[in-house]
């Protein structure tokens, strides 16, 4: 069996016991990448030389007992919106096509300290704006379950790289569903932690009040293990929280007896694919059979989450992306008449259509005369959505629902109609608005054989409960490898 078929924790054990060397693990990842990248295009940058250099250093540290953690020596891929010193970091945009950061994101530093071999940077929607990875300047990523379909987004490269067994695990970021939705579309597991759990230092900002870094991997055990490593208080991020309850692997317990699980009735109305509905509700039955108390309830305000999200995220994006002006880093236009013209031409040539669309919407909703009607209205709606979740968590430990209304769409299907693409985020964006943790894990398949994801949402800083529920559910399933890998004997 190929080493890349193992989970990150399984591979980590083999490395710790000396059965597999770090160089062998690194080689296995690079071999897979070389073989499969022409088909899937999960990466923007693969750092072959650097990977082997890291592997040798890490092996020494394992041998002399300096590195003993569960993921020491295990290869990882990083979404291309996290800075890595000296490595190309593009955000899948033309405007950052030549940017090499002078520092490393804190979440990545935590992985490095734990002995991760950083293989490269994964493809994404440009500046994380999109749900399909089709807005990347570096080409689309294909879904390993069906290469005529999208991997989801914006962390589509990370999710597809894990599903295609190019790397055992990856980091992604989630502003409105960007970890959970691609995980669901690619049949892998992903966690969007509570806002503040993982430092955002070095994560190139999209919607700062919503962005959160998290893991994508083959199973819940991997995700809990990775999250335990990257959750660390960081003085360099003023929204980073200082908490001690980060021993997430202690929640890997197969027991949901008495756990109260609420299913929002309003998640299953119009627009949801019948197969998705059936699989997610069947998953709830499984948890019920294991002793959980499962009830339906009305969460309310579901249809207001997307409008509020797009106003807030676009507003923050318009401000965050002001820094890309052709002066300090990145692309600069060839010809210009003066400074102002240089700014405008650089940005117009450097940003893609979806990014421009959101910058313009954001500039509009923040402009005088519209600020109260749009931006403040959205922030008031956010307060109401948070209250609705608070009420739900007075009764329930976990909220269970779908990740997305459909399984992975065909390539090109949603590009022509942005609003249609935005509506696919209906079950994920409210979790970001309320700052809550959510886990996405496979729970079945639709009639086309595409994976269906289930989402478990927890109360703030209660990742452990959703990890426990997800782990208990996962015990009843077996991990299924993507169709294209099985069919082609890869």
């Amino acid at each position, binding site marked *: 069996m190929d080493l890349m078929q193992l989970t990150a924790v399984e591979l980590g054990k083999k490395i710790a016991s000396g059965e597999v060397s770090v160089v062998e693990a690194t080689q296995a990842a690079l071999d897979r990448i070389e073989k499969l990248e022409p088909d899937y295009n999960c990466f923007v940058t693969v750092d072959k030389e650097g990977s082997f250099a890291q592997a040798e250093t890490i092996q020494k540290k394992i041998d002399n007992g300096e590195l003993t953690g569960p993921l020491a020596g295990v290869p990882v891929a990083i979404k291309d919106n996290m800075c890595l010193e000296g490595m190309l970091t593009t955000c899948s945009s033309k405007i950052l096509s030549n940017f090499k950061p002078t520092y490393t994101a804190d979440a990545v530093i935590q992985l490095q300290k734990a002995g991760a071999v950083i293989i490269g940077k994964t493809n994404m929607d440009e500046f994380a704006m999109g749900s399909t990875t089709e807005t990347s300047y570096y080409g689309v990523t294909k879904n390993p379950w069906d290469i005529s379909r999208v991997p989801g987004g914006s962390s589509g490269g990370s999710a597809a790289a894990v599903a295609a067994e190019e790397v055992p695990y990856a980091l992604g970021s989630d502003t409105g569903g960007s970890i959970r939705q691609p995980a669901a579309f690619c049949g892998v597991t992903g966690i969007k932690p509570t806002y503040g759990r993982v430092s955002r230092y070095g994560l190139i900002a999209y919607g700062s009040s919503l962005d959160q870094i998290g893991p994508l991997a083959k199973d819940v055990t991997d995700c809990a293990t990775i999250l335990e490593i990257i959750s660390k208080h960081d003085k360099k991020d003023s929204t980073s929280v200082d908490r001690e309850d980060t021993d997430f692997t202690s929640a890997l317990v197969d027991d949901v007896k008495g756990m109260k699980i609420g299913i929002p009735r309003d998640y299953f109305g119009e627009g949801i694919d019948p197969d998705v509905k059936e699989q997610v509700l069947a998953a709830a039955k499984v948890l019920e059979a294991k002793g959980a108390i499962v009830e339906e309830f009305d969460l309310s*305000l579901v249809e*207001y989450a997307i409008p509020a999200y797009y106003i807030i995220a676009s507003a923050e994006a318009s401000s965050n992306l002001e820094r890309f002006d052709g002066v300090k880093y990145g692309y600069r236009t060839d010809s210009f008449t003066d400074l102002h013209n240089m700014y405008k031409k650089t940005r117009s040539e450097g940003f893609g259509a979806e990014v421009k669309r959101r910058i313009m919407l954001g500039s*509009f909703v923040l402009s005088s005369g519209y600020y109260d009607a749009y931006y403040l209205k959205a922030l008031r709606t956010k307060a109401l959505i*948070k209250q609705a979740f608070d009420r739900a968590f007075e009764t329930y430990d976990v909220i269970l629902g779908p990740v997305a209304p459909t399984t992975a769409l065909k390539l090109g299907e949603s590009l022509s109609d942005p609003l249609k693409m935005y509506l696919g985020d209906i079950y994920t964006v409210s979790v970001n608005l309320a700052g809550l943790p959510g886990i996405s894990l496979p729970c079945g398949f639709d009639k086309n054989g595409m994976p269906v994801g289930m989402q478990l949402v927890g109360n703030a800083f209660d990742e452990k409960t959703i990890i426990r529920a997800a782990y208990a559910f996962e015990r009843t399933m077996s991990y299924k490898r993507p169709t294209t890998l099985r069919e082609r004997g890869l």
Partner: protein
Amino acid sequence: MTIADETIDYIGILAKLELSDEEKEQAKKDMSTMLEYVSKLNELDTEGVDPMSHTFDVHNVFREDIVTNGDDRANMILNAPESKDGCYKVPKTFG
């Protein structure tokens, strides 16, 4: 909501984007669709609800104003499209 030409021009100034005539027409259409959609929020009664910028009770984080990250000037300037004498170079701003 119909978006006037002047509005798109004004947004172009705020967003520092130069749009072709074709892009302007598309932007007018896209923005009008989005604004119509997000105006759904007007159905909600938010009277007396405070705008929530941060979900949790987080306060300003203060620290002493001491530089801890060293001087990385030479490396940082390597990313600049143009530089001169260790400074960023931009087009002439005075006549």
